[in-house]
């Protein structure tokens, strides 16, 4: 026995760990548990899960590597970290695929049991990297995780084949010890998750404890590390992913509007978790329909909206393409509807599990005819909650379909979220027509569905079942006011104009944008969506070096906030980082004649702060 456990842990202000293994190794779960323990401990954190599209790609190959990166700190952070400090590699393929990103001199913990000739060959190694000196620049810890796990779980009575499956808990136990994470929450979670199967439960507990004990007793590690809690505002916190926050935001919106929620959806990565989550909450009166296809998903949501429910459909890019005709119908019917697009790599099937933000122009222009609709985007996982409420608010108040853009990075990434006081959330007011609103030529009261509110241009909305207000609406152009079919040229021009004016009028309900950073900045970094964290970090670094830089991040992309043009005019240079080839920058240039410069990355992974810092420095000093 050594005395390492007695030594005081070394303090770190931040730590980035990347867990990597085969798709079947349970690395997402390991990362998720490490994250949860750190959140409960009080660290600030951000996560980046990355996994292949295949459920089980061939074992041991580079294609099958699944990774989870978590950044924990004792101060406020905005990103999952640029270069990991620690890589946990469960097999040679994970080492080969992930070593590239590790910081110079970083720590590598490998499951040495898997470094046999067969696995090395599968990973494309001709020599064993553990012995050929190629890892000399790193601190390498070789841990026989498979064999130690198998030995540890013998008392549980599991078959040797199944024993191997607990090795992710061994790895979790080891890093839990190394970074002095609390163990109670993890043990409680194992109990909750596996309690129904005592043998598996016991095996996972034994593996976790064995990993923890190994750290403590093996002479491999000379001391542990500590990352202190980050100062946080008082309140109750939870660790939240974007898709979870978005689901809860939709439920909150339903409560705030006092209207039931109806989700019509078809499974698609990375949006399916919203369907899963909402389907659990039927006691909130939530109806979920797993439709026969994407088109039926939005169709059913639109039918429900006609009936007075909050119609929602959730999807990703390919599904948005399929839904576009129904969005056009919703624009013509002027009914509320929210289309949630969790963007992923495209075109076509593209990179289903990788992030991208290249659907902005699809959202803007991806329908035939003049068919504008409001577009809003979330910037962090927890922001998805507020943005979901905002999307429902706009849809209901303006009787319009709204596209909500998130992406795979926000959807699966997590961060600590200070829970809002639900009583402080602003109610959403919706007024339904209850009486005739027009007098016919013969002097009889009648109901006209296309009579508008003079402020919002929202049309009157009468629900089926309302006495005396029977009316028909359809996709054929209609007479303004009466809603009857009209092929009159002047009326069509008027309807096109009023639909555009209605969407433009949404701007009046949007708060003016606020810029952060230097008031007299030479450069404004303008962003939207999940780039917020990397931009904020990069701007902080540039300012720390003495550069004068400001940041502006847009939630509302159509219409833009009312003061955006004026704000953009204050800066000599405007830089627009996007995970596409320059879609917002194109809109900004067209709308405001601003010489917005585009910074692009379309590689299926988010920007790092370092990349954006370099872009800022380059733009300032070119």
């Amino acid at each position: 026995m050594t005395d390492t456990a007695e030594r005081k842990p070394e303090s770190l202000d931040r730590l980035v760990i990347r867990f990597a293994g085969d798709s079947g190794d349970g690395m997402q779960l390991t990362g998720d548990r490490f994250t949860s323990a750190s959140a409960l401990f009080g660290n600030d954190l951000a996560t980046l899960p990355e996994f292949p599209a295949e459920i089980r790609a061939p074992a041991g190959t580079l294609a099958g590597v699944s990774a989870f990166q978590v950044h924990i700190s004792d101060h406020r952070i905005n990103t999952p970290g640029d270069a990991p400090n620690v890589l946990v590699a469960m097999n040679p393929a994970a080492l080969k695929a992930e070593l590239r990103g590790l910081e110079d001199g970083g720590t590598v913990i490998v499951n040495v049991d898997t470094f046999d000739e067969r696995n090395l060959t599968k990973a494309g190694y001709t020599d064993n990297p553990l012995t050929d000196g190629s890892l000399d620049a790193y601190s390498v810890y070789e841990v026989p995780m498979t064999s130690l796990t198998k030995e540890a779980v013998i008392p549980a009575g599991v078959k040797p084949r199944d024993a191997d499956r607990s090795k992710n808990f061994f790895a979790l136990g080891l890093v839990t010890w190394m970074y002095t994470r609390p163990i109670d929450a993890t043990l409680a979670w194992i109990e909750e998750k596996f309690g129904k199967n005592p043998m598996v439960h016991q095996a996972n507990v034994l593996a976790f404890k064995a990993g923890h004990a190994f750290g403590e007793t093996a002479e491999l590690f000379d001391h542990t590390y500590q990352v202190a809690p980050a100062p946080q505002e008082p309140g109750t916190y939870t660790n939240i992913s974007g898709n979870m926050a978005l689901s809860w935001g939709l439920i909150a919106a339903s409560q705030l509007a006092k209207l039931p929620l109806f989700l019509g959806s078809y499974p698609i990565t990375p949006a399916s978790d919203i369907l899963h989550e909402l389907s659990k909450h039927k006691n909130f009166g939530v109806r979920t329909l797993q439709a026969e296809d994407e088109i039926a998903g939005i169709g059913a949501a639109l039918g429900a909206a006609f009936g007075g429910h909050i119609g929602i459909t959730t999807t990703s890019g390919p599904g948005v393409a399929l839904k576009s005709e129904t969005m056009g119908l919703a624009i013509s019917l002027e009914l509320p509807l929210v289309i949630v697009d969790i963007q992923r790599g495209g075109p076509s099937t593209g990179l289903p599990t990788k992030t991208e933000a290249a659907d902005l122009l699809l959202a803007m222009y991806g329908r035939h005819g003049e068919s504008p609709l409001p577009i809003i985007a979330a910037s962090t996982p927890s922001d998805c909650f507020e943005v979901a409420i905002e999307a429902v608010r706009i849809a209901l108040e303006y009787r319009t379909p709204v596209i909500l853009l998130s992406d795979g990075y926000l959807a699966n990434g997590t961060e600590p979220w200070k829970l809002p006081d639900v009583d402080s959330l602003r109610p959403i007011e919706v007024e339904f027509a209850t009486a005739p609103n027009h007098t016919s030529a013969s002097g009889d009261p009648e109901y006209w569905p296309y009579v508008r509110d003079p402020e919002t241009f929202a049309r009157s909305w009468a629900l089926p079942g309302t006495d005396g207000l029977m009316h028909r609406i359809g996709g054929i152009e209609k007479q303004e006011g009466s809603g009857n079919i009209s092929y009159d040229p002047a009326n069509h021009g008027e309807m096109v104009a009023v639909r555009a004016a209605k969407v433009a009028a949404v701007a009046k309900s949007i708060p003016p944008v606020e810029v952060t950073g230097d008031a007299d900045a030479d450069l404004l970094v303008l962003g939207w969506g999940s780039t917020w964290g990397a931009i904020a970090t990069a701007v902080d670094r540039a300012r720390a070096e003495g550069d004068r830089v400001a940041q502006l991040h847009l939630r509302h992309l159509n219409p833009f906030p009312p003061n955006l043009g004026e704000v953009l005019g204050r800066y000599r240079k405007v830089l627009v980082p996007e995970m596409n080839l320059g879609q917002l920058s194109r809109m900004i240039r067209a709308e405001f004649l601003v010489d917005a410069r585009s910074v692009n990355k379309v590689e299926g992974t988010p920007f790092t702060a370092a990349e954006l810092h370099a872009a800022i420095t380059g733009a300032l000093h070119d």
Partner: protein
Amino acid sequence: MTDVAPTTRKDWQTDQEVRWCPGCGDYSILTAVQMLMPELDVRREDTVFVSGIGCAARFPYYMNTYGMHTIHGRAPAIATGLALARPDLDVWVVGGDGDLLSIGGNHLIHALRRNVNLTILLFNNQIYGLTKGQYSPTSERGKVTKSTPFGSLDQPFNPIALALGAQATFVARTHDMDRQHMQETFRRAHAHKGAAVVEIYQNCNVFNDGAFATITGKANRESMLIPLEHGQPVRFGPEGSKGVVIDDSGQARIVEVDDVDESEIVTHDEQAPTAALAFMLSQLASSPEEPTPVGVFRAVERDEYGEAVERQIAGAQDQRGPGDLSALLRSGATWDVV
């Protein structure tokens, strides 16, 4: 039901000019529906007609109810959402053979297998009318149209067989030349709990005139239409001289009743445990040139989808109480910072 104020046919009509071609079969279907509605003890306010695109899909504009004229093929999906959101409403779907069997075929079969509470009127004229005369998924093979100058190569759908295959709980056929038969069929379809589909042979006098004349013409009906009546032997023709038997290979066949033992004539059972009999009957005519069964092929009870949805919601509320947003936000692991 007695709390519904009485209405007349006129109450169900709108002030909109009906814009079908003069002589179109759609007029008689509209009349049949408008005359039937006052007899159904339903309120106009609680009735919604949902349609897709096509000539038939203009139907909602002519009914003084709530209505949605939507996009091509999607009416069953849109109506599904409406019916699930508002189980208090009476939701009808109206569409043609192109709308419901071609572009919307997927939505139709899924609405049927789910057994959503919809009354679906499928106007089958075996042609595309609104786009001016292309062949449809029910057009006969060899059909010469603008898009098939050398004759169509497609095997047509048999809508009755398709609906039975999709596990529909109510499947019937009627035609536009017999208002009484239409009304009785629609009445039963409307009374059915779950998805009811009625195929209506409908004449398009501009692009496919006389497609059903061989069987629906007044002089031909007796010998060419086979009325299906639950619990009755399947017989037709002058004085019931013809009948349907199921032969040893499991095929329905038309015979002269005099040529067989009367006990061999099959008795119609619309509630049979399987759709086998209804399917065999659906195969009697390969085109409306041959004796064709009309009436209710199948009418069985199965859990209605909307009711099942409501039961799940009520069950969840019983078990967990009404939703508590604050508790939901705290349902994961939380920690307090003071």
